[in-house]
């Protein structure tokens, strides 16, 4: 979040994308966001908000509704999600904010804002089928413990990943 703008400037209507709200809620996973009445229960239970008070799920929901597309999709905080599910577990309106956040991350990824660890993991899956490589030391260790060798099924995973277009997602360049 741009700290200076936060202090000085109001939200400029000319910077808003009024279609963003419907663009997000068109996704089945985010349709429930309409029911949000901004009580903030999600934010009270969010570990990211506890560490970074400038982020909150409630605020993010408001920003989506206002059309602050650029601010939402470029926010680094949306990638910090621990996937604890507290937000949706505690929501009195049954908004699945965890799913809403995934919709936003998916949109951000397409715009080039993807967090690099998840892009790197995808690359690894295309090779071994797992998010880790399987080296000789590991193979030896498993053998010494009488555990079966790990078979690579990366090729088929790769085909599906390409079919889903996931291979085209690029990580955000470090600034």
């Amino acid at each position: 979040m741009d700290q200076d703008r936060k202090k000085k400037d109001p939200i400029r209507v000319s910077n808003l994308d009024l279609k963003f709200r419907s663009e997000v809620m068109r996704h089945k996973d985010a349709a429930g966001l309409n029911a949000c009445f901004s009580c903030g229960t999600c934010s009270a239970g969010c570990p990211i908000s506890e560490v970074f008070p400038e982020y909150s799920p409630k605020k993010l929901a408001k920003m989506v509704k206002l059309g602050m597309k650029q601010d939402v999709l470029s926010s680094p905080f949306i990638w910090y999600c621990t996937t604890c599910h507290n937000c949706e577990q505690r929501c009195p309106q049954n908004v699945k904010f965890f799913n809403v956040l995934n919709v936003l991350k998916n949109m951000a990824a397409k715009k080039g804002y993807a967090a690099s660890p998840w892009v790197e993991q995808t690359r690894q899956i295309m090779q071994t089928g797992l998010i880790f490589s399987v080296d000789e030391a590991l193979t030896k260790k498993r053998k010494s413990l009488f555990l079966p060798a790990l078979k690579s099924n990366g090729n088929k995973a790769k085909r599906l990943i390409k079919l889903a277009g996931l291979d085209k997602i690029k990580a955000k360049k470090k600034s």
Partner: protein
Amino acid sequence: MSRYALFLGCTTPTQVIQYELSSRWVCQHLGIELVDMDDFVCCGINQVNLSQEAGLLLAAMNLAYAEERGLDILTLCAACTGALAEAVERLKDQETRDRMNRKLQTIGLEYTGKTQVKHISRVLYEDVGIDKIKRKIKSDLSQLRVAPHYGCHYLKPESAFGGWDDPDNPKTLHQLISATGAFPVPYETLNLCCGGKSFPVSKDVAFFLVQKKLDNLTNKRIDSLVVQCQTCYLMYHDQQNVINEQFKKHYNIPVLLYPQLLGMALGGDLKNDLGLDLNAISLDNLLVKAGINRKI
């Protein structure tokens, strides 16, 4: 006898091998047959961050392989459990299932909704049962005080688990611990996330969460934290040392994976069956209290 396709996931068979070892031993000991699968890949949980469709497709691929063999899936990792169970739920929708199957067809697969997913603790709880576990106990662990940690995806998203345990007030791991004779210590941050999924992106969030739980446990006189997910294990066990160095802390809390605790009670070999030698934080005090006067 129960029979399951063993879903090892990515992290357990590469980083936390003692979880795999002890799970295999406990299952064999209690009559749960595990079928090794060559075809399984990553469950797709982290790929959901980039593309919900791609993540679901990877999950569906795994479900389809198990279904091809006529098996349900037994998971070790809580996150794999959540991802695959959520996929089962999403794939109940005909339109979603058809869309996924059109893609799966390209590698000769189809998922029709038959294969279900259960975490190893759920299999122990439901298929074996607390009473049978109690009858098989050989070592007296009644002097042990341990803190349960469930792992977020063991019971969440709630819609994927049909209410078999309550994610806000979970009981099953407590009961599984009690079945071994050990005492499950109550504590305030029981449901706190381990931060494992934010660790690759934000160490600030992850370390904050780990410390919050370890701080809470520091004065509870516990002999060990007991987890049922290898990512939770890595965060509380391996990262404990990193945090000690980085933040000048002095945490010294042993961490066990539940099948290791159960395996101790069932009389498993500490090293060969349960891999306790692979846990770096010393278990010496715990073993003395458990009446097991053997060095690992």
